[in-house]
Structures are given as structure tokens and as C-alpha cells.
């Protein structure tokens, strides 16, 4: 059944996040031949419409307002409800990001609709659109369908492949004027942590350190390896609590949920709350001096040893490989 599906794009530092392109791909599947409409909010976002279309949106609707420069649930829901009113969609897809998690349930409640959160896969099966999502901290999966009303889902970053960018695609980018008012939340201050470099939730390679890294300086060999592999550095709660690194690097139930192609866990024991954030990674490597550590249970490859001895050797070996490649 062809249906019209809205995709809310997410803008960070002037560009669309990768998860927005993945959401377009998910929307295409959900639309079953129907129209995919990209939606963008911000103070000045129209210029991003073309790229959204190149990734598969058929057209784009923007709402531009100074008050939408920063996300607030009130501002964004006013804008989105206006777009929904204009477009009357049968489906909506967001990324399951801080923003998507915060906004989607509010919209679902307003529309009295269901919402399937944190989706890692979707496909048409026996005439139904079937969504797969992790439950029980990633220890099990459920398949869900919508039984009544709007098809509304948020997708976990890095799980659904985006469509190939097609620079020859074009479509209409229109703007909708909405009066954004009476925001009940005022953002006084944003404290950005040192998240320079690759965005963790979108990185293809992550080198993560735990309490076993032992100090702030201890993260240096992890950074070197991540640099060589074009990846990002992550951490366990243990490392963050011990002040070896910033909480913005935390991976797990409380932190970021990541699904890289390669996850290298260094000095991390493998607590369930950590696994909840990374156990879906394609390949997991564990480096830990304790052969009994739980992390080895989820690892594809393991080295039992001191990370400070293993990492420099590993970096050197990868350097040689990549120079020759």
C-alpha cells in the first residue's frame, strides 16, 4: 500500500546528520511506492533540502524561525504539527537520537498514535510492514507491526543503510510559515564537550577504553589507533566516572548506542549496561588482561593481555597494512 511518509531531518552544525539519510531509506521502505517528504527545521535550513533529495526524499518542506535554531520540544512540535496538518502523512520516521527520542513520543501522544522506537530493521513481510527492535538491554529482539493508525517509528543510527546519493535527483523545497510561540523551555546555556572529530554514533570504527586505561594519558594509545583507522574514541562508564575522559564519550545504556563495523574494547569488563550500547557492532575485538572478563563472551576476536603493550603493536601493524593497501 503506497503511503506518504514524512522524515524529520536532523541538522547539526550546519549539516544533515547521517541518520537523516538512513531515515530517508527507512521512509522509502515504509512508503511502499508512496511519496517521501523530507522535513527540516532551523533558522536557515532550506539550502540543505537539495542534499536531502539527493539521498532519496521526493521533496522537502522547511519551517524556518529563529526560535527553531535550537531544539526544544515545544518549538519543534509546533512546527511538526503544522507540517503534519498540511501534508496529512500516513507515516513518520525520525532518528532515535536525543532529539528524536524527546520529540517523537510527544507527537505520538498528540496524534493518539502508536510509536515504534529504536528500530534496527524494517521490511515488508506478508503484506505487513514489520519493524525489528532490541529489547531487554539488547539481549533479545522483537518484531512489531502497527495495528491502528499512523505508522510512526524512530530508527537507531548506523543500522539501516542510506540510499546511494544521486546528484541528478531534484525536487521541490518549499517553506511553510508557522508562528512559533510560547515556548515553555528556555535553553540558558549549552555546554559542549570535546566531541571533536568523528561523531561516535555514526563512526565505522570505535576504539573504546574502560577503567583499565587507568588515566587520562592512558587514552593516548587509543586515540592513535583510532586515528590510523579513521575512527572515534569511546569509553565505558567506568572510565568516565574515574575522570579519565568526558561523559560525552560514554557508550552504553546511559550513553550512546553505537553500531560500528569494528569495536575495539580495551580494558572494559563488559557489564550489561555497556553491552546494551555496543553489542550490535558488526565485529567486536576485546583486549583485556583478565581472560574471564565478560567482554570476551561477546567478542569475535580477543587478546588476553595488557592493553598498553597490545595497542602500540596493533597501531604499528595497521599502519603498515594501510600504507601498503
Amino acid at each position, binding site marked *: 500500500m503506497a503511503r506518504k511518509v514524512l522524515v524529520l531531518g536532523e541538522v547539526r552544525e550546519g549539516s544533515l546528520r547521517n541518520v537523516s539519510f538512513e531515515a530517508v531509506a527507512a521512509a522509502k521502505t515504509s512508503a511502499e511506492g508512496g511519496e517521501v517528504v523530507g522535513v527540516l527545521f532551523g533558522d536557515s535550513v532550506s539550502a540543505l533540502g537539495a542534499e536531502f533529495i539527493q539521498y532519496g526524499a521526493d521533496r522537502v518542506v522547511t519551517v524556518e524561525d529563529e526560535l527553531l535554531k535550537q531544539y526544544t*520540544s515545544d518549538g519543534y512540535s509546533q512546527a511538526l504539527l503544522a507540517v503534519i496538518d498540511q501534508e496529512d502523512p500516513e507515516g513518520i520516521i525520525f532518528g532515535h537520537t536525543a532529539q528524536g527520542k524527546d520529540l517523537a513520543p*510527544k507527537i505520538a*501522544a498528540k496524534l493518539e*498514535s502508536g510509536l515504534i522506537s529504536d528500530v534496527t530493521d524494517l521490511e515488508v513481510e506478508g503484506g505487513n510492514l514489520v519493524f525489528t527492535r532490541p529489547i531487554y538491554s539488547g539481549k533479545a529482539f522483537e518484531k*512489531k507491526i502497527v495495528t491502528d493508525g499512523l505508522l510512526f517509528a524512530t530508527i537507531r543510527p548506523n543500522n539501516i543503510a542510506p540510499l546511494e546519493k544521486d546528484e541528478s535527483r531534484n525536487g521541490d523545497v518549499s517553506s511553510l510559515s508557522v508562528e512559533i510561540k510560547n515556548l515553555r523551555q528556555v535553553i540558558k546555556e549549552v555546554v559542549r564537550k570535546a566531541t571533536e572529530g568523528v561523531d561516535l554514533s555514526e563512526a565505522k570504527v570505535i576504539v573504546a577504553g574502560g577503567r583499565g586505561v587507568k588515566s587520562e594519558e592512558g587514552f593516548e594509545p587509543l586515540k592513535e589507533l583510532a586515528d590510523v583507522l579513521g575512527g572515534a574514541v569511546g569509553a565505558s562508564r567506568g572510565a568516565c566516572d574515574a575522570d579519565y575522559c568526558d561523559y560525552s*564519550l560514554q557508550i552504553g545504556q546511559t550513553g550512546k548506542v553505537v553500531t560500528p563495523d569494528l569495536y575495539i574494547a580495551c580494558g572494559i569488563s563488559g557489564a550489561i549496561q555497556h553491552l546494551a550500547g555496543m553489542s550490535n557492532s558488526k*565485529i567486536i575485538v576485546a583486549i583485556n588482561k583478565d581472560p574471564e572478563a565478560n567482554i570476551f563472551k561477546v567478542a569475535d576476536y580477543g*587478546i588476553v593481555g595488557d592493553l598498553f603493550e597490545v595497542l602500540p603493536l*596493533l597501531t604499528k601493524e595497521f599502519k603498515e597494512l594501510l600504507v601498503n593497501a
Partner: protein
Amino acid sequence: MNIYVLMKRTFDTEEKITISGGKINEDGAEFIINPYDEYAIEEAIQVRDEHGGEVTVVSVGTEEAEKQLRTALAMGADKAVLINTEDDVEEGDQFTTSKILAEFLKDKEVDLIIGGNVAIDGGSGQVGPRVAELLAIPYITTITKLDIEGTTATVVRDVEGDSEVIETSLPLLVTAQQGLNEPRYPSLPGIMKAKKKPLDEIELDDLDLDEDDVEAKTKTIEISLPPKKEAGKVLEGELEGQVKELVSLLHNEAKVV
């Protein structure tokens, strides 16, 4: 201050998970207060101790949630309410739970509602924002700090590791992120006192709801365990050899580098 805490009884996901008859096997499993709701209970107690008022912990579930509600009372909450759905609803989803909670809360003149940011079993993170929307009050999710002065609340929200300082007003719903506080353990006197504290039980009928009003919008059609991973390969031999082998495996076998 009139404070409500939304509390879910959850499966302890540290336990081994098995499936029987297409469902997660609950026989002999440990059940706990959802860990993020422990932060919510602790915060509610601290706000009450500072500003006065009363903390009521509410849970939608079955009789079995009484145990977790008693624990919340033992931590220091004043009252507990179980909305028992056992006889009325067989299949529910987040729409169901939120609607029931909002119906219960709508005439309670709440100042502050605190929930967890996510339940470790269901994992959707929907219930908090949904309830706030149904009550038409503002909400802030994943908070790590809460300060209240009069009817103004200043909140620190965790946004993927960045923090936002947000000013908003009561009545308000917030959801707790790890780092908000250190939940206390129930003390022995606390446990004794809890036995005498009110734990009310109500049903959908008492909220003027019937089954149709809360009918789920989504349905689970299958539950499965992740594909069994083959036991990982722990490398052996001298360290330099292991490292060379690992790089070769990642490059040639796994093809991720």
C-alpha cells in the same frame, strides 16, 4: 509540593534471558525497580525534603509490582498506588500505559512528575513525554540536575554527552538520567515504616476507562534472541604474532579494515 513518581517493575536484564512459547521466560527471573526509576524516586524524596510536600509512587502493572512499590515506600516515598490492569488489559503498548497514567494523574494537581528516561526491558523511552503531553505540561528528558525555586525549575539535560541548562516552569515532568543522584538503599526502619504506609490499588474502572480506550496501537508479533554468536576466537601464542594474526583476521576474514 505534590510530587508523583512513575515507576516500572522490570526484568533484571543482568539475568540470563530465554524464550519459551514465543515469550520471554519469566519463571524464576529477578524483578527490580527499573534502575532509572530509582533515580526518580531518590530525586523526588530529596525535592520533598527540601521543599516539603508528599511523594506518591505510581505503577501500572499487576499485583506483583507491590513488592517494588513497597521498596519505594521503604526508600522514603509517602504513598504508593498500583493501577492493576490484570483483569482488564491483555495486550498493551506505550499508548496504553501512558493513557492510563495520564487519566490517573489528570485531577491530582501535580507540581512535579519524575520518571525514568527509559525502561531497561521495553526500552522505548516513550512513557514520560507521552504522559506530559496528555497532561499538557512541559517536560524535560534525561536530566542530570534539578533545581526548583518557587514555580521555576532549572534543569540540566544530557544531550548525547553535551549538557543543556534549561529553565522551565512547574507543573513539570522530568525523566531521570544516570548521574542525577545516588539512590539510597532502604534502611531497616524505612522497611518497617513502609509496611504501614498506604499502598492503594485501583483498576481501570476507577479511572472511568475501559479496555477500548486504552487499546494498543502496535503489536509484537515475534520475539527472538540475537543470532547465536560463535564463540569468539581468543588468540594465542607470542604477543607480536597475536597482533599480526588479529590484523590479518580483521582485514581478510572480517573485512572491516
